[in-house]
């Protein structure tokens, strides 16, 4: 990249022809209002896409792609860029053909159509969804160069949906109801167990995201929203909820999504996503291009509540400054932070550290390895380091 000392990339000694000459777009008409019934990003933003890592899995239908965090700003993830994780590909379901069944320990087992669900009281909430395996490839050391790949299994969306409590109340819970099983209508029949208390507190059955219908890859026409808890629980294409008195021990809560520790034992039911943060710029996909004034930015989030503070270090964790948080600070939502700083072209070791409303402080990767080992796969919320070189390029490194 071209590194420019000073204020601007343009030559200041002779007039800029982009100003002195009339450009085509300043003269000729562009597309009219009948051309884009549903709009798309500019052709100059073609690089802003979800990306997958083809060597990760045997099959793209049971795999993941990643949100381009380094290209985002604010706290809302555009629906078209929310990372995808499927176990049998994207089910494309006609909402008229979708059914939701409630059975098990209820007074009356029920079947709902989507029309039924849309006649229930609804609510709107912004929540992050993070896959428990986000940053999972980084347990043993720096692996992928780019926050899209290291941290891109997270997104943040405004959901519209019906509180699960409304639906459970309509069916009537039996007194011994303790666990719920959520089941998807896709080819993997994804199923997970969820404690009834969580189901009655803040879980939503969502049919809209960011103002419009759910996207197919996010579970259209109906998905579970389990605020602050690992993404795998947020069952997509939700078709059934069974009420029971014990957890089901499904494949996704035993073979997967349990956390193997160094001593060979494993934690189960590790639902909550601990506080975490990442600097998205500068980062390997978002180099510094200029000396002088720059914007450092990133996201912080916590499954336990709100983000209270974010600290940033430019020297690998020796010294910290508190970042400016800007934009809504919401419960269990991505939160945006900035540090406006002057850069003289020196090497930087950039880190961020989230602190949530419960007082939890995001640990370093080594602190985490000390208590968990390196075989956990899931719940890696350690502090990320980007080494920024004198030319502004940056890379994913481990510090010792």
């Amino acid at each position: 990249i071209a590194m420019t000392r000073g204020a601007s990339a343009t030559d200041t000694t002779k007039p800029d022809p982009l100003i002195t000459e009339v450009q085509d777009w300043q003269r000729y008409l562009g597309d009219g209002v009948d051309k884009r019934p549903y709009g798309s990003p500019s052709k100059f933003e073609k690089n802003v896409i979800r990306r997958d890592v083809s060597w990760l899995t045997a099959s793209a239908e049971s795999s993941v792609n990643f949100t381009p965090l380094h290209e985002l700003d604010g706290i809302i993830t555009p629906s078209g860029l929310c990372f995808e994780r499927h176990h049998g590909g994207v089910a494309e379901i006609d909402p008229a053909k979708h059914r939701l069944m409630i059975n098990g320990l209820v007074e009356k087992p029920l079947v709902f159509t989507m029309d039924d669900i849309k006649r229930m009281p609804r609510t709107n909430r912004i929540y992050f969804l993070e896959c428990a395996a986000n940053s999972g490839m980084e347990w043993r050391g720096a692996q992928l160069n780019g926050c899209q790949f290291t941290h891109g299994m997270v997104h943040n969306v405004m959901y519209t949906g019906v509180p699960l409590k409304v639906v459970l109340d309509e069916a009537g819970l039996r007194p011994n109801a303790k666990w719920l099983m959520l089941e998807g209508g896709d080819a993997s029949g994804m199923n997970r167990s969820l404690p009834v208390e969580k189901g009655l507190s803040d879980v939503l059955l969502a049919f809209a995201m960011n103002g419009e219908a759910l996207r197919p890859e996010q579970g259209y026409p109906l998905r579970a929203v389990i605020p602050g808890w690992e993404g795998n629980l947020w069952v997509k294409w939700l078709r059934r909820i069974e009420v029971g008195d014990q957890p089901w021990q499904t494949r996704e809560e035993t073979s997967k999504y349990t956390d193997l520790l160094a001593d060979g034992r494993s934690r189960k039911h590790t639902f909550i996503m601990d506080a975490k943060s990442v600097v998205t710029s500068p980062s390997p996909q978002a180099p510094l291009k200029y000396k002088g004034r720059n914007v450092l930015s990133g996201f912080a989030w916590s499954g336990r509540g709100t983000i209270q503070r974010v600290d940033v270090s430019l020297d690998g964790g020796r010294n910290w400054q508190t970042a400016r948080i800007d934009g809504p600070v919401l419960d269990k939502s991505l939160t945006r932070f900035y540090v406006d700083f002057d850069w003289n072209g020196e090497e930087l070791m950039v880190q961020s550290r989230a602190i949530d409303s419960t007082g939890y402080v995001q640990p370093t990767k080594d602190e985490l390895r000390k208590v968990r080992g390196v075989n956990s796969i899931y719940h890696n919320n350690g502090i990320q380091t980007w080494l920024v070189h004198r030319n502004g390029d940056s890379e994913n490194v481990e510090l010792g």
Partner: protein
Amino acid sequence: VGAAPAEPAAKMGLGREALPEEIAAWDTDVRPDGRGLPVGRGTVKQGDELFQERCASCHGEFGQGAGRWPVLAGGQGTLRADRPDKTIGSFWPDLSTVYDYIRRAMPYGNARSLTDDEAYALVAFLLNLNDIVKDENFELNDKNFASIKLPNAEAFFDDDRETSEKKFWNKDPCMRNCRELPKVTGKAISVDVTPDGKSGPKVD
């Protein structure tokens, strides 16, 4: 045009009662205590035949996994190793999970195509591949199913992060001179597996 309507009723009156045939069609889940198991049976031998026909192309003749497809057997004693092999035999806590999962999701690409008896046979064969059942005439059925325990069952415990990781709740995180001068000890670039644009590196 009437006056403003009264408060809506407490029960919404939405949805309709699920019929027994409908519940039967979807309620196929199986729990560790055997609840949800259909009446049925299958032997290791029957399972072997089925597995070679419908599963081995991905999971390998002996469940060892073909290419990057999942490994289903082996790995016993590796859970403390540098690269653990987590399989049904080495890791899974409950046999019910195998039945539940195969019945709902396998074979991959043609889910829900196995009969109840075929699923019993396949689970029996997977027990055999994992050295939990040695006799190839062994028949797994709804009666003996819940009695079979998997080796790693006792190794799981409930989330205890709030106590075991209590130190991460720290009232006064260090702000100045918090550590020695850091040194770079590892770089993603040395591993060199980051996809460039749309395509990842070829593996296999």
